[in-house]
């Protein structure tokens, strides 16, 4: 115990005394660690942004898409029958998260006239299943489909065109269906970076069906989605397909498939960039290590007398080896801490996040694995750089070192 504490005390005293030399030798290590850690940290953010984007488009894993059609005519089954079959089957397998979704256009009465707005018609669960983020207000709640004034979740473009009303005042807007209907805006979604100034909104399926014209009702073919655990998604795919096919009859072809990003995701799309920057970082780290070895070797040669003195006072060869090694490890680890700190500052900088992952809603916490990787790499480099000087140190001939 005292041996280990003593070695740390010695190493720390050496670093304190030679702080300028140590600082200079460690700049390379700190920069490399900062780069390496930043790559991992920024990679996590980019990954999260990509994932969110995928989840908004095709649902969270595992999202099963259920559809049916007549293989001869290509016609869809009656909506009511399909809806009943889907509800019954998903209830049977205790699937808690389901939604219908379809796309249509609804005319909204803005001050400059009626304008068609792309509308995603969904059920309440869609918000969670597709990770819909709101900049203000709230997503639909159970029972909203029964409102006489249908609820709307609009994007910021629509909200601004309506004069950016305060949602606490329950702002309304007239939409056109079978007649003019007053709708209430309950939430606002941020504009997507690739879809700026383009009006879109969400409306509940049952609300839309209540205001739609008979022709619109006839022409709507919703997509049915179920969010199920990834582990049992394959089994559920087969069971749901079999049961709905049974419920709708043999004439119809029922298809159940996963379309979330995990199904298609083979190789990490960011892998080439990660490898490139990671490779450069490792190269910088090795150069830093070389500098550290170089300076450590020179320093050890200058310190031969001191090592001899320590040996004369009972420092064993192992202790001298450990102490010289520890100096390098402690110094490199300290550089690692600095490097990780720089990386945190870079990765958590809002300007950097906006640059690499515009539109991200859930900015992930700084990944612990990135910090550990940085510290681990620094410590490893320190041990590597300390090895050679430590071997030189234990070969010092004590009396010769002291006397000459």
């Amino acid at each position, binding site marked *: 115990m005292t041996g280990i504490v003593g070695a740390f005390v010695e190493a720390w005293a050496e670093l304190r005394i030679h702080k300028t030399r140590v600082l200079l030798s460690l700049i390379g290590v700190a920069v490399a660690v900062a780069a390496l850690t930043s790559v991992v940290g920024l990679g996590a953010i980019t990954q999260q942004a990509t994932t969110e984007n995928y989840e908004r488009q095709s649902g969270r894993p595992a999202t099963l898409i259920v559809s049916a059609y007549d293989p001869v005519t290509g016609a869809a089954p009656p909506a009511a029958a399909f809806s009943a079959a889907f509800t019954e089957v998903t209830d049977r397998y205790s699937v808690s998260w389901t939604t219908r979704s379809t796309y249509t256009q609804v005319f909204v009465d803005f001050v400059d006239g009626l304008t068609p707005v792309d509308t995603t018609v969904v059920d309440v669960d869609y918000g969670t299943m597709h990770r819909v983020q709101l900049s203000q207000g709230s997503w639909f709640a159970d029972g909203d489909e029964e409102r006489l004034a249908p609820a709307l979740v609009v994007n910021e473009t629509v909200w601004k065109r309506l004069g950016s009303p305060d949602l606490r005042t329950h702002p309304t807007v007239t939409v056109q269906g079978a007649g003019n209907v007053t709708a209430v805006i309950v939430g606002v979604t941020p504009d997507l970076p690739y879809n700026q100034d383009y009006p879109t909104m969400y409306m509940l399926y049952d609300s839309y069906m209540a205001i739609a014209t008979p022709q619109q009702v006839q022409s709507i073919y919703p997509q049915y989605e179920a969010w199920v655990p990834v582990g049992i998604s394959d089994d559920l795919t087969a069971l749901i397909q079999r049961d709905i096919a049974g419920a709708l009859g043999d004439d119809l072809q029922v298809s159940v498939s996963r379309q979330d990003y995990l199904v298609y995701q083979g190789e990490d799309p960011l892998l080439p960039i990660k490898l490139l920057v990671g490779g450069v970082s490792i190269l910088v780290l090795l150069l830093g290590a070389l500098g550290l070895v170089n300076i450590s070797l020179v320093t050890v040669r200058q310190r031969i007398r001191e090592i001899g003195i320590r040996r004369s006072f*009972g420092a064993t060869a192992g202790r001298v080896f450990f102490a010289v090694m520890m100096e390098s490890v402690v110094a490199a680890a300290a550089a690692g801490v600095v490097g990780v700190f720089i990386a945190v500052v870079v990765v958590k900088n809002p300007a950097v996040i906006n640059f690499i992952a515009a539109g991200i809603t859930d900015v992930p916490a700084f990944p612990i694995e990135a910090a550990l990787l940085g510290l681990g790499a620094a410590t490893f480099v320190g041990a590597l750089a300390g090895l050679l000087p430590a071997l030189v140190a234990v070969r010092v001939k004590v009396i010769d070192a002291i006397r000459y």
Partner: protein
Amino acid sequence: MSEARPLLELEGVTRTVELPDDEPLHILRGVNLTVSVGDHVSIVGRSGSGKSTLLNLLGLLDNPTKGEIRFDGKRIADMSANQRDRARGRDVGFIFQQFNLLGGRTALENAMTPLLYASGRQFWRREQIALEMLDRVGLSHRAQSMPEKLSGGEQQRVAIARALVRGPRLILADEPTGALDVETGASVMALLDEVAHSSGAALITITHDANIAALARQHYRLDRGVLAPVDVNRVLALAQPEVTL
């Protein structure tokens, strides 16, 4: 020779170095020496007489080619390198000609250095022990001074405090006054003798200076690898300018 229990015994110790393409170099030839607790021994010798090699062996830093060294009754040859290192740290205190204080560290930190290799109470109380030892050599008021701010005599007193913090039973002083003027050298030797005597440690002084050697109670001369007792009067005579060692 002393009647007390032997601390260090050298019997027929020879140290030979094999040289490539040349005859082996016999540095020490059949050295016999017995040092007991409380002894004060001086060894004089010219440069190249084998003093460094003998210091290596006395300080448990090397093994003889032939012969036997026993420390506290134990054969050095039977001890592992680590055991020798630990025994050296515990029982041997070194004092050097150039003081060899560690740069960038205060007098107190220098005096504490050997205690970094101690264990238990000595390790955890190292600062207090070092302060007490600095006080004993009259330097408690300079504890926070850097070596370069101390005079030669003060530096050597810090070195003495450093050599004694672990309570060694053998003190090896290698040219302890070589870098000091005559007056300071005499006062440092008086202090060293007093501290060694009061702590009951054996003191071996290796020196060129016959006056310093004469302060010891047993006197030896090392000449071409052969160690032989020498009379104190002969040592003093050697101190005269016309006599060479």
